[in-house]
């Protein structure tokens, strides 16, 4: 039998054509249109808009808060995913379903709820503010909103990968004398690192574009807590569509470069540890045995 008949889905040509058309229509066309619109401005003008003091401050806030939120989610999301896969406890299904809620909730509702919660008279804010921790209407609020909105990405990308690591591997590592930390850092972590990075990257890119939840909790003070999407809206209020697209294109370019870097890191980490080495061998290596 010819090899191509072994493929599960028939018609490689058709499927590829469909993929290209689909991606072009839904992603390349709008983005291309945006870049084309922005190109009505000269390169110099785009740079001027991007380097104005307000834009720079907004870029710092947007990308800083997004990276921080994605990093925190990578750490805590890993714990959540691990608990959900490896342990069984009463109400586990309920907790598992809870993880998806941030996806389902309209982001504006999330923003209003969070700011009510963290405001000076809110359930949490009333205890935090006397301690000097201000969340609502400060850049901290932005990070909180972004953590909320992007949590599911890390958890959901990690869960299937953790499920794939059988606990025999850990047992093998332990029986070969690996400590808990060695087992984690040299057996488990390398196996989940690529997925963790994927989750991180998705959380980050979602956070960069987030508007609805952030504006309700940020406070929106110029130079302090204004995010780039707010500046874009502000340009649209002035009917300055060109200026708005210019900002959007710069934002897109920065995100693209960062995502590319993350992708590279992911590829590198996958290759570094992999080398077609089975997990059992990694378990042995972790314990100091020759692979």
């Amino acid at each position: 039998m010819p090899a191509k008949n072994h493929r599960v889905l028939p018609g490689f040509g058709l499927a590829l054509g469909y993929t290209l058309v689909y991606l072009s229509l839904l992603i390349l066309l709008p983005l291309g249109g945006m870049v084309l619109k922005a190109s009505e401005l000269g390169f110099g003008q785009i740079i001027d808009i991007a380097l104005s003091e307000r834009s720079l401050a907004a870029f710092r806030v947007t990308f800083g808060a997004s990276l921080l939120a994605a990093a925190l989610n990578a750490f805590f999301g890993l714990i959540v995913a691990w608990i959900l896969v490896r342990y069984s406890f009463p109400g586990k299904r309920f907790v598992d379903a809870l993880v998806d809620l941030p996806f389902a909730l309209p982001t504006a509702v999330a923003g209003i709820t969070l700011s009510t919660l963290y405001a000076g008279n809110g359930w949490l804010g009333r205890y935090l503010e006397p301690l000097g921790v201000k969340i609502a209407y400060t850049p901290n609020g932005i990070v909180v909103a972004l953590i909320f909105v992007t949590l599911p990405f890390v958890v959901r990308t990690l869960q299937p990968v953790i499920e794939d690591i059988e606990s025999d591997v850990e047992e093998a590592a332990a029986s070969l004398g690996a400590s808990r930390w060695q087992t984690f850092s040299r057996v488990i972590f390398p196996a989940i690192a690529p997925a963790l990075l994927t989750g991180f990257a998705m959380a980050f890119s979602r956070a960069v574009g987030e508007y609805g939840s952030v504006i309700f909790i940020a406070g929106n003070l110029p130079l302090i807590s204004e995010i780039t999407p707010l500046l874009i809206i502000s340009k649209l209020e002035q009917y300055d569509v060109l200026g708005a697209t210019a900002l959007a294109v710069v934002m897109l370019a920065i995100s693209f470069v960062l995502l590319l870097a993350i992708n590279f890191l992911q590829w590198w980490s996958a290759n570094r540890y992999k080398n077609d080495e089975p997990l059992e061998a990694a378990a042995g290596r972790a314990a100091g045995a020759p692979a």
Partner: protein
Amino acid sequence: MIRFRRSISAVLLALVAGAALADTTLLNASYDVARDVFKDYNPLFQKYWKQKTGESIELKQSHGGSSKQVRSVADGLEADVVTMNQANDIEFLADKGLVAKEWSKKFPNNASPYTSTMVFIVRKGNPKAIKDWGDLVAPGVQVIVPHPKNTGNGRNTYLSAWAWAVRQKGGNDKSAQEFLGKLLKNVPLFAAGGRDATTTFMQRQMGDVLITFESEAELIAREFGKGEFAVVYPSLTMQTEFPVAIVDKVVDKKGTRKQAQAYLDYLWSKEGQENAAQNYLRPRDAELLKKYAAQFPPVKTFTVDEVFGGAGKAFATHFKDGGSFDQIYVQK
């Protein structure tokens, strides 16, 4: 299969019949909080139009942020009329050639059938004794307003404070900008919109004073109870207009000019004006204003045209990138 076909023809029939029943459809693109006004106004007009011409008319509403709405109309949303809360939004449509250049002369009163003013909402008993714009810059006073660059509410507040400062003894643009600088230092956050500012002030109990439309104060009373706050009228405040216009391009294409004209004209009728008053908007009709005097105390107002030479000019000077608002934050 037969049943399926039947149901399809039934649907088609219903569609045709529906179109025949409502002779004409008008779409009114409006700003966000106009919902209540037009929810009450539309049935009034339908009744009036049916009586006058025998034609039943279907009225559709589209609501959203004022500038967002106008952009949709420019991009092809087929609205017969626009009823907005900022003149520069209609100005934008005029620039695009969708609305007559002389739109503000096409109807009486600058094409604004009713008005409102910007007022202070303070906490019960006015503990910080806030009486006028000058009190807002006192140390320790927190002022809640929506973002002046992104919301009409915020812009009206900013311009009101500016106009007041310019009219003080020895006041000029420079002193006004300094005054605004001090005022903005007392603004702990910029709310996302008018309603968000209200929630922040009333529900989250942030700030000592909220600046908003007089009409909004009544809605707050309904929501949170009258005793919870007090309304303060400053010595000078903006008369905010709610301009309306016919979208020429759309009515000419749809052949609905007659109906659209009548729809907007009727806003100035006794019924239309009374409806506005019931929704806490100040009617232009002097008699009705007297009738509802308890609700609309006399207040000294200015219009944007008088002080700033038009909405477009005010926007360009103060809220465009690099305008007076930006200068306060970015000293360069």
